[in-house]
């Protein structure tokens, strides 16, 4: 017979194993961060950090490293992707959780999940062969590889995140809220928009922010459709920025890493550090939103 002592020992061994495996991800994060920082460091012997972020001239062969153009392109495409993706995603979530019959909502949810499983290079290739020529035709452009095209593809890619998280946020609204609202004479749509969405707002907001993070970090699909020219997006008028090509932060790293060496390589890692800071900021905001959601 197995003694209690033996069971306790097994328990403590297992606890240690679980602890160890949990730590792997933390260590991985630390390792990546330290590695990226160390690799980026040599850049700042030659370029000061301010001009790295505020200069829009990127010309490694002339020793000029400024990533402002890429920061602007990243911010623009990400925001546009979220602006396109949010209404589609939120309304899909409302349809799935509130309006559709069970069978249809299951089917839609299934489709959304498939969308999440498609590799990003497939999105990119779809964009390159379908959306790029379409955009070129619609706007009579020199090339359909534009920031707008990238935003559209990114909007598609963040849909699964927005839809599935918003759906579960809406589904977790207590029954009493809905019943109370209906009992007070509100219509179904009024109940959804005035009672359930406000109640679930922190969950829905989190889904938007996670979508934002996904769009910011996406690479493969973007470099296939965004054109990747290293010029500063034209901000006045703003639509010109979206009708021209541009290069995002992630795109810059992937674009040039293969052949880069020395300072050039360090500049690409520094680009990664800047990206890391952006992603961290988004995550901090997510934490704040979640905390507020719990306390309110």
């Amino acid at each position: 017979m197995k003694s209690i002592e033996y069971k306790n020992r097994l328990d403590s061994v297992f606890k240690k194993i679980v602890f160890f495996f949990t730590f792997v991800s933390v260590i991985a994060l630390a390792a990546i961060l330290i590695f990226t920082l160390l690799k980026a460091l040599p850049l700042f012997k030659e370029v000061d950090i301010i001009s790295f972020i505020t200069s829009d001239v990127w010309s490694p062969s002339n020793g000029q490293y400024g990533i402002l153009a890429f920061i602007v392109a990243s911010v623009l495409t990400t925001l546009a992707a979220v602006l396109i993706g949010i209404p589609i995603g939120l309304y899909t979530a409302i349809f799935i959780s509130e309006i559709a019959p069970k069978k249809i909502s299951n089917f839609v949810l299934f489709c959304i999940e498939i969308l999440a499983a498609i590799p990003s290079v497939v999105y990119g290739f779809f964009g390159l062969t379908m959306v790029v020529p379409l955009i070129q035709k619609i706007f009579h452009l020199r090339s359909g590889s534009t920031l707008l095209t990238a935003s559209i593809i990114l909007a598609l890619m963040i849909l699964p995140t927005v839809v599935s998280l918003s759906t579960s946020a809406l589904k977790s609204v207590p029954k009493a809220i809905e019943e109370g609202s209906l009992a007070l004479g509100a219509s179904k749509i009024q109940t959804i928009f005035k009672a359930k969405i406000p109640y679930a707002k922190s969950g829905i907001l989190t889904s938007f922010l996670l979508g934002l993070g996904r769009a910011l970090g996406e690479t493969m699909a973007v470099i296939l459709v965004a054109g990747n020219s290293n010029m500063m997006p034209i901000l006045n008028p703003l639509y010109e920025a979206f009708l021209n090509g541009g290069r995002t932060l992630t795109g810059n790293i992937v674009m040039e890493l293969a052949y880069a060496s020395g300072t050039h390589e360090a500049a690409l890692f520094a680009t990664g550090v800047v990206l890391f800071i952006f992603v961290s900021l988004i995550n901090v905001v997510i934490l704040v939103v979640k905390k507020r959601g719990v306390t309110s």
Partner: protein
Amino acid sequence: MKKFLSVCVLCSMLLVGCGGKASGSETSEFVVGGSTSIQPLMEQIAESYNKSKSGKITVQGGGSSVGTKGAMDGTFSVGMASRALKEEEEKSLEGTVIALDGIVIIVNKDNPITNITLEQAKQIYTGKITNWKDIGGKDQEIAVVSREEGSGTRDGFESIVGFESSQLIANADIQNATGAVISNVSGNKQAIGYISMGSMSNNIKGLTIDGVEASEATILDETYKLQRPFMLCVKKGDESAKALFDFIFSDEGKQIIQEHKYIPVEREG
């Protein structure tokens, strides 16, 4: 319990597998470095050479100028350059052409243009000509497609056509792979791009340059202008790379060059 133990063993085995030593020891005595265009070819040559002749060659990138500089100051035993040697380099280095590569300027199949001059290519890529009608095509804006900074093909193209990297038209689409350049040009009737000759495909149209079509024959007799030599250079009088050169100019070496779709040449002198 047995099950539990075997799971533990399996996990630890997996972990050991993941944490394996970083590949390759850096203590090799023979380093070949330089042009990133030659790098993939050289890596395979080195692999075969190391296997059959038990050599210890390692290959590094960096670019043609890094290659010649490295060969001069002894960082590399052999420097790789995908361009002709400059005068001051020739003073201290001995260059050997091991292969030739043609670069083809490509356009969409629906583009009526069939020929271009190097001067026109330069003006298009530096933004002085922005409409196809200026070189006899349709009245459409030209969509310039180029490769990324650091790419050997870009370096080769820019140095033969004759402009600096920073002069490239700012709104040029940049792609970091030959395949991406091809799909960009095959999908856009207004696009122009350039690729290594070995990568030509049927989806796109290669332009003749000054009326000469790119082929093995026109590259060997030098009538096709947009071509570049793959050079290996050593310090003058240095004989340590003789065995490597013997291997490259052997049938086996030439076969590797052909597999990479470059044009092998006969040994000079």
